[in-house]
């Protein structure tokens, strides 16, 4: 379970509920049209709520070391053999979560754990802000 500070973007994790169940429980309603619209509006406004985003320019300098693996199109992890994932253009909240999971050891990949451990929470926010701003 996640306990990152400023973790409000992650209610589903702590509850273990599906989005529908979560919204039902949170609003105390079954999803009819009106709450659905409200939920849709809420979701659209979430990026603004999660506004304690980092500094994209700082993030750009901090991803310098990442490019050795994530910067080469088609680059593969050696053992086991699979492509190093594309992280540019990925969603902000998910990137923060993924990097935090490596930092805490909840995701096992050894080199990514080492990367995560070397990053502060501010670094993670800056990097996620920069990466999520990228387009193909």
């Amino acid at each position, binding site marked *: 379970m996640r306990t990152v500070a400023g973790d409000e*973007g*992650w209610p*589903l*994790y702590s509850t*273990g509920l*599906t*989005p529908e169940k979560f919204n039902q429980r949170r609003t105390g309603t079954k999803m009819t049209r009106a709450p659905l619209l409200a939920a849709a509006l809420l*979701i659209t406004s*979430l*990026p603004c709520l*999660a506004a304690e985003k980092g500094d994209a320019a700082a993030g*750009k*300098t901090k*991803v*310098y070391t*990442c*490019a050795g693996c*994530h*910067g*080469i*199109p088609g*680059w593969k992890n050696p053992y*086991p*053999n*699979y*492509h*190093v*994932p*594309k*992280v*540019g*253009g*990925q*969603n*902000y*909240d*998910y990137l923060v*979560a*993924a990097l935090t999971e490596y930092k805490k050891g*909840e*995701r*096992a990949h050894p080199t990514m754990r080492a990367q995560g451990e070397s990053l502060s929470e501010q670094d993670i926010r800056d990097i996620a802000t920069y990466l*999520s701003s*990228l*387009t*193909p």
Partner: protein
Amino acid sequence: MKRFTASLLITTLAACATPAFAKGDIEAGKAKSVPCQACHGADGNAADPQYPRLAGQYHDYLERALREYKTGERKNPIMAGFATTLSEEDIVNVSAYFASLPGSKLTDLHDKVQGD
């Protein structure tokens, strides 16, 4: 006959070189992807930022992630639930489907770091 065999070989090789044909049945994967769309988006480009975008991600990375959720090596209560419903064949197919989707917003960091 020799020429025919040669051209057949070339066609086979060419088909193998095309990633879409290399692995997985995209149509079968599409059918399996219906429950996934609620979170990961109908186009695989999850609009809700808490969910990862899958469209255009490498198929072998997606497969690996799904296997890790299934074994519990990667821990996430939501995805563990979905991954356990998938057979090995489903994992390969659904990964091929998401990897094949057009309009991917994902990119690697080529030319995207300071100094490039």
